[in-house]
């Protein structure tokens, strides 16, 4: 492949799953691309197929129609180049934090065959990574001895320990309190600026999307379609102060309006293409985030 080719290509992908005997179309004719090292955010109302799209990028689900290519080759199953983190940190409670971070190396080729021999070197690398995210000296603790934010940091380390080219994040900060969440935005930005992996971040927090991403895609309610693509040309590294700048809030509001278009009147899904909403688009319907809900600090949604 040439350097001009996008690193990730999602090419007219349609994906459904069967639920209680009925086929639910989760993702409908989605096309998007990402350059190598690009930070992409996919935002949309809950249940719009964002997670399904992410799983298909990981090779965990295969498209019914269309194709996904990463680094020029079609994704036909899980590959070692992917790291994943979810809203729930799901660390293994019987492993110390360090051993949790090392878990991918026990599974991924080529490390798995020589893991025992190279364990010391890997452990040193994991300690460095833990220190980078602010977990210096926490490697010997068990996950349940860490706070929710610390667990999510460790979960990020686990997703990155095997140097993946593609980091897939499914609302990773959704369950954290507002202050911890913003701190982890900065942590993630630092990691990304340092290693320049390609990121797909699924989120329903538009501030988060604008703050972190180079490009924000907005998906409609199910079946998920891409209704808008917005470039975020803000310079890096971004600071939390930047989120109050007019350029930031303008971008936020532009994207927020697209979320409004994902809504269908009366809540009945239609097959009609998404309409452009005018500025007076009604306030979010049930199930959609309230426009101001994303702006201010939110209470923690409860930590595991």
């Amino acid at each position, binding site marked *: 492949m040439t350097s001009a080719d996008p690193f990730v290509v999602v090419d007219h992908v349609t994906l459904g799953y069967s639920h209680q005997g009925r086929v639910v179309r989760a993702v409908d004719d989605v096309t998007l691309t990402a350059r190598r090292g690009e930070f992409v955010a996919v935002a949309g109302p809950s249940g719009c197929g964002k997670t399904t799209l992410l799983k298909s990028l990981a090779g965990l689900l295969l498209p019914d129609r269309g194709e996904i290519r990463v680094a020029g080759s079609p994704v036909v199953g*899980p590959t*070692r180049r*992917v790291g*994943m983190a*979810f809203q729930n940190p799901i660390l*293994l*409670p*019987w492993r110390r934090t360090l051993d949790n971070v090392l878990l991918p190396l026990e599974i991924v080729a080529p490390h798995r065959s020589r893991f025992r021999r190279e364990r010391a070197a890997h452990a040193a690398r994991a300690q460095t990574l833990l220190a980078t995210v602010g977990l210096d000296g926490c490697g010997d603790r*068990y996950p349940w*001895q860490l706070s929710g934010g610390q667990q999510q940091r460790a979960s990020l380390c686990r997703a990155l320990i095997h140097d993946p080219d593609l980091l897939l994040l499914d609302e990773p900060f959704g369950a954290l309190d507002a202050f911890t969440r913003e701190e982890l935005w900065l942590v993630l930005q630092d990691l990304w600026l340092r290693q320049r992996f390609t990121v797909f971040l699924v989120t329903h927090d538009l501030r988060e999307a604008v703050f972190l991403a180079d490009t924000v895609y907005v998906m409609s309610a199910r079946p998920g379609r891409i209704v808008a693509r917005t470039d975020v040309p803000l310079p890096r590294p971004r600071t939390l102060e930047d989120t109050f700048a007019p350029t930031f809030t303008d971008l936020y509001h532009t994207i927020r309006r697209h979320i409004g278009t994902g809504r269908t009147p009366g809540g009945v899904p239609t097959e009609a293409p998404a309409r452009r909403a005018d500025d007076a688009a009604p306030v979010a319907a049930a199930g959609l985030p309230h426009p101001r809900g994303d702006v201010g600090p939110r209470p923690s949604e409860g930590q595991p």
Partner: protein
Amino acid sequence: MSLRRTAPVWGPPAAVVVASLVLWELAARFMPVFVLPGPRDVAGALAQWRAAIWYNAAQTLVTTLVGFGVAVVAGLGLGMAVGYSALVYRALYPLLVAFNSVPKAAIVPVLVIWFGIGTVPAILTAFLISFFPIVVNVATGLATIEPELQDVLRSLGASRREIFTKVGIPRSLPYFFASLKVSATLAFVGAVISETVASNRGIGYLMLAASSRFEVPLVFAGLVVVAAMGVVLFAAFAVLERRLAGWAYRGQGTA
């Protein structure tokens, strides 16, 4: 994890035990000894019949442990199969539930027809009664692995077998040990039932023989011995559980 300081608070349980003994002794004062012997009568019987008790307790202990051991091996195997494969789960679960609903005491006569009286039916009854909790718990531990965790491992290219060994087995250990504690005591119940119905050796037989001779203190002594063996086995597995799956007891003793 640093093991919590084992400073057991002996006070409350000791007080309850002593109070129970006192109540028992008081109640026994108002009853004839062949209805309710007091603790001192039972202690006397324990001392007087210690040779017979020892001989029969050893038999009960051996049959219980053999039956329980078979239940552990078979329960672990079947539990893993049921937890690993949704197909095996669907195929076997109704039969397992039906099987567990059968009163085990009612099976003993059948076992006697097949195997004669004595050790074999006692072992089989102990096995049958302690088998089911192990299967159910191991299967539950395996079947409730978080889907996201499976996604993380699968996205790295882990096979089902790897997910099973890296996550499934450690994760189901606390469930397994919980079932062992229940099953170990149930196994004694099974062995004693079978000995009572059809045996000429064992604590169950001793109690039956004693009651037919109105040696009621000896009957109670048999009960005490069975209870003591059950407590010891339970405690042994509780210790093993803390050693091998202590992580499941987080929250206690950690800030």
